[in-house]
């Protein structure tokens, strides 16, 4: 993509984010059933979230090009970690995942408990195109909510450094046979991870289960675990 188009895309993204926020910024009460998620969310704390495995560490770059360890982004707070690539245009993949994180970010701006205990991380698996600069542009989605939970945008230095991370988290990514595919050049499973304060993966969501109401119930279930200790 040439630079002009990139800037145009970024501008559209930002304008849209502002537009959507202005016309649609509402509270948690607006989260309701949809045709894809036609059920009521469970009450937090009424069910168990078994440990799936430890969240792996990795050496990454943040949106300011500063080195950062993934370990530092998956400990201390309850973390919702989403693997994405910014060129993805598949409606039920990365845009959906980023939308879910954006909803959580907005909600956290209005809920002190979430703001103080939640962390959001969007990590790219397309390091060649998703440079720190690009992730910085993408991070505009998190702007304008100073009271919200932290939302980090990170990427790997190279494909070589990325591969062990993908393997550790079980994130499948392949190049499509047609690199000009309108939905983006990469095949990937949609994965969003819920990680507790101790750095243990407690749930994995895909498009069939990535319902913000379920994620919220899970986050609050982990918060109740902490309170019960």
């Amino acid at each position, binding site marked *: 993509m040439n630079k002009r188009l990139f800037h145009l895309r970024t501008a559209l*993204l930002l304008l849209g984010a502002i537009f*959507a926020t202005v016309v649609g910024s509402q509270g948690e009460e607006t989260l309701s059933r949809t045709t894809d998620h036609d059920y009521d969310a469970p009450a937090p704390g009424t069910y168990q979230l078994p440990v799936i495995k430890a969240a792996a560490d990795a050496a990454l770059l943040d949106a300011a090009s500063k080195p950062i360890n993934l370990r530092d982004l998956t400990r201390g707070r309850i973390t919702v970690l989403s693997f994405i690539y910014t060129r993805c245009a598949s409606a039920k993949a990365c845009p959906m995942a980023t939308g879910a994180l954006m909803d959580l970010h907005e909600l956290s701006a209005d809920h002190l408990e979430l703001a103080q205990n939640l962390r959001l991380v969007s990590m790219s698996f397309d390091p060649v195109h998703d440079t720190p600069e690009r992730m910085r542009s993408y991070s505009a989605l998190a702007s304008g909510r100073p009271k919200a939970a932290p939302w980090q945008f990170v990427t790997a230095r190279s494909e070589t450094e990325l591969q062990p991370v993908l393997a550790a988290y079980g994130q499948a990514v392949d190049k499509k046979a047609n690199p000009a595919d309108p939905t983006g050049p990469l095949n990937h499973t*949609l994965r969003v991870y819920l990680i507790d304060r101790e750095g243990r993966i407690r749930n994995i969501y*895909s498009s069939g289960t990535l319902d913000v109401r379920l994620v919220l119930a899970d986050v609050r279930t982990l918060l109740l675990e902490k309170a019960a200790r």
Partner: protein
Amino acid sequence: MTTILQQTYDLSSARPLRSQRRARAIAILIRLALLLALLFVVARAIWADETCSSPYLARIDGQEEFVYVWTLGVDGMGDGQDKLVTVDVKPGSPTYGKVIHQVSVAGRHEAHHGGFTDDRRQLWLAGLESSKLFIFDVYSDPAKPRLVKTIEDFIEKSGGAVGPHGVYALPGRVLIPALSNAKDKTGRTALVEYGNDGNYIATHWLPTKEEPRGATGAEFADGYGYDARVLPRKNVLLTTSFTGWKNYMTEFAKVASDPEAVKQTGNSMVLWNFHTRQPRKVFKVPGAALEIRWALGETHNYAFTATALGSKLWLAYEDAAGEWQAKEVFDIGNVKGGVLPVDISLSADDKTLFASCFGDGKVRVLDVSDPHKPRQLLEKEIGRQVNMVSQSWDGKRVYFTSSLLSKWDKAGKDNEQFLRAYAWDGKDLKPAFALDFTELKLGRPHHMLFGATAMGERKAVPAIVSR
């Protein structure tokens, strides 16, 4: 311009769960982008897969190229071991309809069912007798699956579950319904979760009268298990019930003639809250309900199952009041004649259901357009015995295998062991190819799973993982 609109769609589709006010405000942008997406889908909508696979599973892009057959070893036949047999079903291939690869696992384990992980990179195959799980890499070379790991401590890790049956893909993990338990080897059993890495996660015991775990209909709860399948859109999991190790590892004639053994067969179906893994409602379903097939239509809130020992087709459905119900909807055959419907396959358009019947070796093809009033379209003999049936997503190809269980298969000349492929034209099944697993010294073929070299976008199926 296309790219700009596509990026606009990026943004608008990133807001799927907020208010209607916001949705209306960005609706025009979405519609423009959806129009483009629709044109794209129409241009490349040729894809296929097995209709009964997990909704969380990556889909095959195009036609299936391989049929993987989990095959029971037979003493004195070939190497006598259980094996994964790969059959080439790629049209035009010089080896079409032939076995192109096989991998034996050490020993016989009562090979039965298996399933892929959600990324379709691994195929997990289970042994009902030994409770071992064999994990194959089907990603590196789908034509030549490679055994990469064996789980040998399923019983210990699960806290006493025995007889891992199916392997059902969930995001990043698999759900394994077991058939029995280590304590008494009856059908009292559990659902067990493993991560895609092969790490144990959790065990969920089926509800019983004594421990209903909050489910209604506890009086019907026998704690038995068999199949487990999810309708993500409704956040429900459905499980069925068969029988325990003592029965499935005993000759069928002995089981059938022993009233106490017959009593130890499943008579229940359980609806669960999938997210919490908590049972919600137990239904009385006499006669060992086996395979579950959720309808695929976006508003079709129902599933079929068939009772092997009752020869009935059952419907689990959400009624107008939002309550889940279960009822018999069709008599598949005369149970005294030994029809034994052991597998069913529902077409992708939810209109046609194939029921393979072990007892008389026939398939019954039903029109289930009205799920409450099925009617039979065809009854056709496939062999002297028939067990599993799998159909392609486009409904044009149907595959059958012959073996039920090593101790329950027929004897003598009735013990045909085969994979037979047919073309379905909407009215009849026309033979495509057949493989004699006895002549090929392979064993007893059971579960079939489709493989391919290409995985693609999955646009036509609701509530699935996008790739």
